[in-house]
């Protein structure tokens, strides 16, 4: 005869689990059958308690657990709020101007902001500056001479216009 079954194995058989060999042993072994019946009696007591008696009042510790989710959520929200408030305050106090960052040796200035329109149009050398001034004067002249009083304006006669046109063309050629 094989060894008797353990309490765990008997519980496993009671739960419809276990192997065919264990079940065969249970049917053959009177001692194991008696222990198996004990499980049935104990579970009958469990069923009687669960079905016929009222549940005891939960202990204080169990009641406290209802508070834990609310407490955890509140603590998390407070932590996040403090972190955001602190971070935004520090940023306001310590952040450098957005337009530029000066290195510690003051030798290099790195611009992090896009250049303004005036800066982008600034001439790179004197030659370009002169050309711009001439073009602006020509445009102004053209505006003056484009009106109805062209005959009455001394700088707008045909001879002056021809001279200026020749001068601009030679400038452009050079």
């Amino acid at each position: 005869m094989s060894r008797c079954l353990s309490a765990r194995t008997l519980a496993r058989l009671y739960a419809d689990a276990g192997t065919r060999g264990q079940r065969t042993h249970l049917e053959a072994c009177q001692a194991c059958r008696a222990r198996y019946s004990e499980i049935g009696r104990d579970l009958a007591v469990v069923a009687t308690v669960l079905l016929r008696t009222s549940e005891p009042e939960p202990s204080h510790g169990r009641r406290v657990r209802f508070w834990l989710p609310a407490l955890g959520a509140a603590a998390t929200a407070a932590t996040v709020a403090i972190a955001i408030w602190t971070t935004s305050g520090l940023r306001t106090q310590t952040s450098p101007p957005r337009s530029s960052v000066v290195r510690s040796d003051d030798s290099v200035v790195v611009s992090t902001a896009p250049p303004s329109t005036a800066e982008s149009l600034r001439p790179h050398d004197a030659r370009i500056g002169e050309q711009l001034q001439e073009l602006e004067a020509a445009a102004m002249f053209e505006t003056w001479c484009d009106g109805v009083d062209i005959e009455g304006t001394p700088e707008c006669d045909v001879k002056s216009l021809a001279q200026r046109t020749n001068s601009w063309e030679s400038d452009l050629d050079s």
Partner: protein
Amino acid sequence: MDGASSYQAVVEAHYGRVRRLAQLLLADPEEARDVAQDVFLKLHRTYDRDDPPVAWGPWLTRVTVNACRDRRRVGWWPRWRHATDRVERLDLPALEPNPEEVAVRAELRRRVWHAFRALSRRQREVFVLRHLEGWSTEEVATTLGLGVGSVKQHLFRAVHRLRAAAAESP
């Protein structure tokens, strides 16, 4: 028997069992009462359908288990809300003691309930349906959407722990 009276007969036959089942799965008498009302409201809507269930007992059990699951999914807020308002749950002296409660000693009762509440949700559901409702392992597996092996495993753990609690010497 007309429809109304037969409906009433189903309610009378199963109301106590359904409420008890809900209380076992939810651990809260107020929630269990709400679930029982929901279940029988559903029964009322289903009762006059053209294709009623073959047996109302298993149908009610299935609906109750699902309603308890839905109730648990709602979250901690309703439980917390009810937990602050439990005057009616205070132990009041009964005029006539329940003989079964007298027979079962208080210590054993405390141990068994404690062990039952210490089980996982799945273990509780499986144990209640298999041992208290008397369903087969396959029916439990189908209702809970588990494999048969998984049901056996949950049942084994529940049996092992509850038996230990019941057999423990005071």
